């Protein structure tokens, strides 16, 4: 198609007005129109607030949940559930450890999800999204509750993860927002928060951004602001060529949200956490597109090149003989989220010894029909980024789950531990989903007055139902605050300074393009904040970034509003890289849960470092602090989840 473009090279298809100001006033401003932002908007407007949502892509389909969802986590309050939210917190703690609960966020975010995710699911059902087996396709299946017609995944004993048919959840949410009168501002990259007097650390009174179609400038003035953007990606690995379509998270999930929090003086934590998971290799395939038994494909049978089955074991290592046994707790296990039945953990050695021959295949035809249909028809049919990309693409090329076994990635044997094999090969990102973000309390409020957080912003709690749950919760708090908050006042000097900053790259005649900038920045992180970390290495990295600010970054060049948006992401990436390096420097120990290995401080997790380190800027200086692990159940908070929730949830 490039010929079509260049042959008919024409002017930019949207009217361009760099710098033209648009001012919008709202009670509650929501930054990020993904799952958390949409649920927040609906919840806030139902409580009478005037709501504006600003989104870099398009609310219709953007965000990590833009393509839909197939499994609804932590629905502990559904009528068929055999586990309470309180018990679930114990399961999460024993599964994930002390620093956070992986994709479920920390104790606050996870408990809110456990209490509200079922209600959030009922919300989308009212919008017309199918969340149960109303067509009676799975009558009699072991994962179906015959009374409610709910279908469950993973732990069939405890029934807290619901299989939903929600490929179209985003259009349904957008329609509901429009019906209720939420003001939606698509295609605007928010670059900076507005604070009273323009000073970091002061009350947040809105945000500023640029439209990536028109280049116009937007000033959002708000009594309360919710930040519901996702985890920054592409910090250690960026390549539209190598990865592109296979990137784990959508391409719009970039560093500007974390950078704007930093610039506004927000207190951040776990910014030094990296390498907690093999996030996404450089030679990835699309999510769920290769043979595996993970997540949406749980618990698919895997066979080797000769058709020999790979054994499954339970948490205790006992071999499971039947498919049916893979969906149940081990003896003595209360419930499972991740540490349930799995492929035998000695698979890498057994492949290396030649007992199992590569390539491996996912043996869908060998699965019982109801499980095969649940994996391929329901889950792959509805999960984020699978209905069209995987289900229909494969089937258009003739794939038949009744007959065909999907090949797994061929990779070094040591990578065949249980997990997402589509993404494990090649140069790695070092930052996992349990990474950092703003410190927040039981109001989902940050340390800045007027600023709340929801969704993946909360301790990188990156899952769909958690985003929905915390979105509606944060909106209740923000709306309550906005009702009595004083009139927001915009600092004109802050606006002018931001305008000068954001448009610099369009006022040049040449310079460095956004892709080269991003490629250069990931090289710095790979070299100076990757496997080898020490005082000298990190300081060298900061020196490089500082020097780049004066030269390459200062030459950043955008030829249209689209390129401008990507340049603004790259500028934010410089800030975030610096924050991560500074946080890493301040953490003078190594830490297994944080994935932090320092050559100069090799001791793993010394007792004095069993805490969250916090970091923020104040008057241009770095301020570090600390929070106890489990801070959400320590004073000034109440000692139990239930009590904190009752005091803060506004329910």
């Amino acid at each position, binding site marked *: *198609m490039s010929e*079509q473009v260049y042959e008919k090279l024409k*002017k930019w298809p949207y009217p361009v007005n760099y710098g033209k100001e648009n001012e919008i006033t709202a009670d509650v401003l929501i930054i990020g129109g993904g799952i958390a932002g949409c649920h927040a908007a609906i919840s806030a407007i139902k409580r009478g607030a005037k709501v504006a949502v600003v989104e870099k892509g398009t609310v*219709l389909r953007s965000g990590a949940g833009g393509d839909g969802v197939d499994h609804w986590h932590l629905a502990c309050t559904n009528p068929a559930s055999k586990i309470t939210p309180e018990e679930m917190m114990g399961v999460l703690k024993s599964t994930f450890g002390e620093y956070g609960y992986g994709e479920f966020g920390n104790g606050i975010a996870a408990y809110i999800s456990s209490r509200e995710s079922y209600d959030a699911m009922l919300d989308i059902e009212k919008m017309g999204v199918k969340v149960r087996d109303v067509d009676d396709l799975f009558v009699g299946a072991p994962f179906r509750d015959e009374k409610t017609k709910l279908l469950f995944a993973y732990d069939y004993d405890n029934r807290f993860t619901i299989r939903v048919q929600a490929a179209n959840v985003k259009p349904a949410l957008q329609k509901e927002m429009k019906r209720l009168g939420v003001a939606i501002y698509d295609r605007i990259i928010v670059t900076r928060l507005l604070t009273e007097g323009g000073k970091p650390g002061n009350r947040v009174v809105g945000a500023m951004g640029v439209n990536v179609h028109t280049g116009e400038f937007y000033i959002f003035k708000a009594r309360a602001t919710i930040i519901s953007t996702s985890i920054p990606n592409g910090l250690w690995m960026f390549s539209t060529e190598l990865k592109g379509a296979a990137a784990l998270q*959508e391409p719009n999930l970039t560093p500007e949200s974390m950078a704007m929090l930093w610039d506004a003086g927000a207190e951040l934590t776990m910014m030094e956490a990296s390498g907690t998971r093999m996030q996404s290799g450089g030679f990835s395939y699309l999510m769920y597109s290769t043979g595996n038994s993970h997540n949406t494909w749980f618990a698919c049978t895997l066979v080797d090149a000769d058709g020999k089955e790979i054994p499954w074991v339970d948490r205790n290592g006992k071999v499971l003989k039947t498919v049916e046994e893979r969906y149940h707790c081990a003896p003595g296990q209360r419930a499972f989220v991740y540490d349930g039945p799995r492929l035998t953990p000695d698979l890498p050695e057994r492949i290396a010894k030649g007992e199992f021959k590569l390539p491996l295949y996912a043996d869908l035809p060998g699965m019982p029909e109801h499980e095969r249909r649940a994996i391929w028809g329901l889950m792959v*049919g509805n999960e984020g980024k699978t209905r*069209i*990309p995987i289900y229909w*693409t494969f089937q258009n090329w003739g794939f038949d789950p009744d007959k065909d076994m999907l090949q797994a990635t061929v990779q070094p044997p040591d990578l065949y531990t249980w997990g997402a094999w589509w993404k494990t090969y090649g140069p790695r990102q070092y930052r996992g989903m349990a990474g950092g973000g703003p410190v927040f309390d039981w109001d989902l409020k940050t340390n800045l007055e007027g600023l709340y957080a929801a969704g993946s912003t909360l301790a990188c709690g990156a899952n769909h139902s958690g985003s929905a749950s915390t979105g509606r919760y944060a909106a209740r708090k923000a709306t309550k605050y906005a009702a009595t908050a004083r009139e927001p006042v915009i600092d004109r000097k802050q606006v002018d300074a931001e305008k000068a900053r954001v448009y610099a790259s369009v006022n040049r005649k040449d310079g460095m393009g956004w892709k080269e900038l991003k490629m250069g920045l990931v090289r710095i992180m790979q070299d100076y904040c990757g496997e080898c970390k020490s005082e000298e290495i990190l300081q060298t990295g900061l020196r490089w970034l500082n020097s780049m600010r004066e030269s390459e970054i200062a030459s950043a060049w955008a030829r249209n509003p*689209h390129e401008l948006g990507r340049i603004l992401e790259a500028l934010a990436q410089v800030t975030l890289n610096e924050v991560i390096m500074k946080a890493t420097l301040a953490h003078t120990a190594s830490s297994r849960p944080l994935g932090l290995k320092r050559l100069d401080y090799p001791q793993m997790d010394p007792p004095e470092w069993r805490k969250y380190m916090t970091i923020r800027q104040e008057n241009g200086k770095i301020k570090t602090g600390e929070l106890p692990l489990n801070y959400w159940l320590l004073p000034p908070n109440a000692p139990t989840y239930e009590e904190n929730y009752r005091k803060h949830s506004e329910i």
Partner: protein
Amino acid sequence: MEDAVYMMPNPVTPNQCVVINPDLCQGCNACIEACRTDVLVPNLEKGQPPVVLYPDECWFCGCCLGNCPVPGAIRMDFPMNQRVGWKRKATGEYFRIGMKNPPPPNTRPPIG
């Protein structure tokens, strides 16, 4: 010679992720509305197919296709470096995305 030859930058990578069939496309721009990364932009000629301007930024989410009112007007295929294969259990035949003469499409719809 009918086709003029131009000096041009190289084709971007990938460049065939999203392909619009101009014979079927009605030029309604519904795909543009659904695209999160502006891979597609409007054609300056009204009613003409959108321009696939930034195929290298395509995340292959399929939302453009999902929002398109005309079946078959948009074709999406994995970038060549991300194509995968499978084996037919009963016969051992090997198939892959992108092969010549693939088996006929499987039209069974997903659930929901």
